[in-house]
C-alpha cells in the first residue's frame, strides 16, 4: 500500500442500507486514505454503527444501493470472513461473550486463518504465545485472560482490551473502532489508545466511530466526518472537534 495522498484504501460510494424495513444509510459516501485516522462523529441514530456493520458485512444489514470498494475491489457481496482475511477489522462496541471457546485458542485460530490466507506458515502454540505475550503487557492484560472463555465475565474494559489485542495480533489494514471508548476508565482508555497508536504505521487506516471527543485526545484524527441522518454532512480537519463541542451537531449544516 503506498502513501499516495490520492489513493483510497476504502471507498464507500452512495451506500443505502436497511436494518429490517428501516433505511438507515441514505446515500452515504466516504473515502478512507491509507495511513490516516478518520473520525466519524454524529448524534444518536445517525447511522454510525450501521456504517461499521455495513463495511464488515453484518447479517442485520441489507445494502440496497451503492458500493463498497476495498483496495480496488467491490466487497459488498463478500462474506464477513473474506473481508476480515483481506484486512478489515471491526472492534465491536459490545463484544459478544462465547462461553466454552478458549480465548487463546480462538485468537490462534483467527491468526492462523489469516496467515494461511496470506500464504504464510501457521504459528504453533509456543510461537503464538510468545507473540501474544508482547501485547498483553502493553495492554495491561492479566495473563489469565487468555486462558478464559472468550469475553466471558470480562469487564467492559477487559473486553475492549481484548478487542485491541485481537487487532494487534491480526495486523489489519483498515481498522474500524466502534465506540472504543465507551465504558472505559481513564487507565483503560490510555492503555487501549496506546495499543491503537502503536498500530499506526503510516499505511494503516483507522475509522474511529465516537459520540464524544474524549478518545480523540488520545488518537489524533486527520479527518472528522459528521454523520447525520444516514449521510456524511461535513468533512473537515481536527479543528472541527472543538466546534462540535461548543455548538453541537445541530449547528452543522449540510
Amino acid at each position, binding site marked *: 500500500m503506498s502513501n499516495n495522498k490520492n489513493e483510497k484504501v476504502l471507498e464507500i460510494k452512495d451506500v443505502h442500507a436497511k436494518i429490517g424495513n428501516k433505511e438507515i444509510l441514505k446515500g452515504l459516501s466516504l473515502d478512507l486514505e491509507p495511513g490516516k485516522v478518520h473520525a466519524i462523529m454524529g448524534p444518536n441514530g445517525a447511522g454510525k454503527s450501521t456504517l461499521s456493520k455495513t463495511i*464488515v458485512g*453484518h*447479517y442485520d444489514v441489507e445494502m440496497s444501493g451503492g458500493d463498497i470498494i476495498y483496495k480496488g475491489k467491490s466487497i459488498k457481496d463478500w*462474506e*464477513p*470472513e473474506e*473481508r*476480515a*482475511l483481506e484486512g478489515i*477489522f*471491526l472492534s*465491536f462496541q459490545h*463484544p*459478544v461473550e*462465547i*462461553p*466454552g*471457546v478458549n480465548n487463546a485458542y*480462538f*485468537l490462534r*485460530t*483467527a491468526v492462523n*486463518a*489469516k496467515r494461511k*490466507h496470506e500464504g504464510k506458515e501457521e504459528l504453533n502454540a509456543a510461537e503464538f504465545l510468545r507473540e501474544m505475550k508482547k501485547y498483553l503487557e502493553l495492554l495491561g492484560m492479566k495473563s489469565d485472560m487468555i486462558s478464559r*472463555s472468550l469475553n466471558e465475565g470480562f469487564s467492559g474494559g477487559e473486553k475492549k482490551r481484548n478487542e485491541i489485542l*485481537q487487532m494487534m495480533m*491480526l495486523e489489519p489494514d483498515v481498522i474500524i473502532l466502534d465506540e472504543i471508548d465507551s465504558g472505559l476508565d481513564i487507565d483503560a482508555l490510555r492503555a487501549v489508545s496506546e495499543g491503537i497508536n502503536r498500530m499506526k504505521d503510516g499505511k494503516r487506516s483507522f475509522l474511529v466511530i465516537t459520540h464524544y471527543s474524549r478518545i480523540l485526545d488520545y488518537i489524533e484524527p486527520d479527518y472528522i466526518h459528521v454523520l447525520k441522518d444516514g449521510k456524511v454532512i461535513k468533512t473537515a480537519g481536527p479543528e472541527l472537534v472543538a466546534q462540535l463541542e461548543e455548538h453541537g451537531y445541530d449547528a452543522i449544516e449540510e
Partner: protein
Amino acid sequence: MTLTINNLKKKSKDEIAQMLGLTDDLPPSKEAALERLAELGIPTKKSEEYRYFDVESLLDKSYEVHLHVPKEPKIGEKIVIENGVIIEVPKGMRVYYDQCDALDLTHYDPIYYLSHLLAPHVIKIDLDGDAEVELVHRYTHSGALLPYRIVLFNQENRHATVYETFETEEISESLILYGYDMHIAKDSTLRLIKTQSMDENRYAMISSNRIKVNDHANAIIKTFDLGGDHALQLLKVDLGTYSHIDAGHLLYLNHQAKRGTVSKINHIGEHSTSQQEAKNILDGNARGIFDALIKVEHSAKWTKAHQNSKAILLHEDAYMAAKPQLEIYIDELEASHGATTGQLDRKQIFYLQSRGISYVEARKMLVIAFANTLIETVKDTRHQERIQKAFEKAFYAGHKELKR
C-alpha cells in the same frame, strides 16, 4: 437361522421359545427371561420407551441370526469382541464365557430379555484392582442379527475404568442387540466411557443395560454417540445406600440419524445421589432422544437427583425428543430437572467470522464449546483427544456440502 423379531409379537412364552429354537431344558435365568419377554411383548411404536425410536421398521426386517462360536483369544492390549466373540484379551485379565446367573427380573425393556435369550452365553469381565481397560467392539457381517451380552464385575474399594469403542467394516443392514449387566461393588468406582461413531446404513443397535450400584459405590457413565444411523441405549440403574451415579450423554447426530438414551434411574437406598446431563447437537434430519426418568422410592430418603438436557438444533429439520422426568415418593430430598432446545447464536457466529474464521469453522467452534463440558469430564487426555477427533469427523461429515 433367519429371524424377524416382529413375528414374536403377541406370542406366548412357549411359542417364543419354539420360534427362537429354545427347546432344550433351559437354565432358570432363561426361563425367567422368556416369561418376562412374553409378559412385556415385543416393542412397538406405542411402547413408552421406544416411542421416539423407529423400532418397528428395524424389527420388521429379516436377519440372519449370527451365532457366535467361541475361539481361543489372543493376548493383546485391549479386549476385542468381534461379532460377539472374544478375540483379544489383555494378559492376566479374566474375560470368559459363562451363563448369566444374575438376570434383572424387573427390567422395563423387552429387548433386554430378548438379547439374553438369543445370546447363547454371556461374556463375563472381571475387573481386578484399579484396572483401566479398552474394550473394542467390531462388526463384520451384513444383514446379521447379532445378540450378545456382557456381565461386568469390579472389586470392592477399587476404581476401574473401561473405555469402550466400536468399529465396523463395510457392512450394511445389521442389527446389534447388546448390553451390560454391570455390578458395581461396594465402596468402588466404575467409570465407563463409551464412544460410538456410526456411519449411515452400516448397522443399527439397541443396547439394553442394567447397572446395579451397590452401597457406597460410584458409577460414572459417559456416552459419546456421534454420527448417523439408528441406535438406542436403554439404561436401568439401581442405586443403593450412599451410592452415586454421574451420567453424561453427548449426542452429535447428522443426516437421518435417530439415536439417544432412554433411562430409568431408581433411587432405592438412602442418601443416594444421581446427576444426569445430556447435551445434544442435531444436524440434518436427525432426531435425538433423551427420555429419562429418575424415580425416588420410599426407601430412598435424603437423596439428591439432578437431571438436565440441553439441545442445539443446527438444521430446521432436526428434532429433539427430550423428556426428563422425576417420580418422587418422599419429601426428604433435593431434586431438579429441565430441558432446553435452541440454536447457535448468530451473534457469536458473526463475531468469529469477523475475525476471519469461516462459517463452518465458527459453527464447529461453538458446538465443540457446547460439547466440551462433557468431553472434559474424561480425565485421560489421550481419550479426550480421541473423542474430540471423532466429534470433528462427525461434524465435517454433516458439513460436507456446506461451502461456507
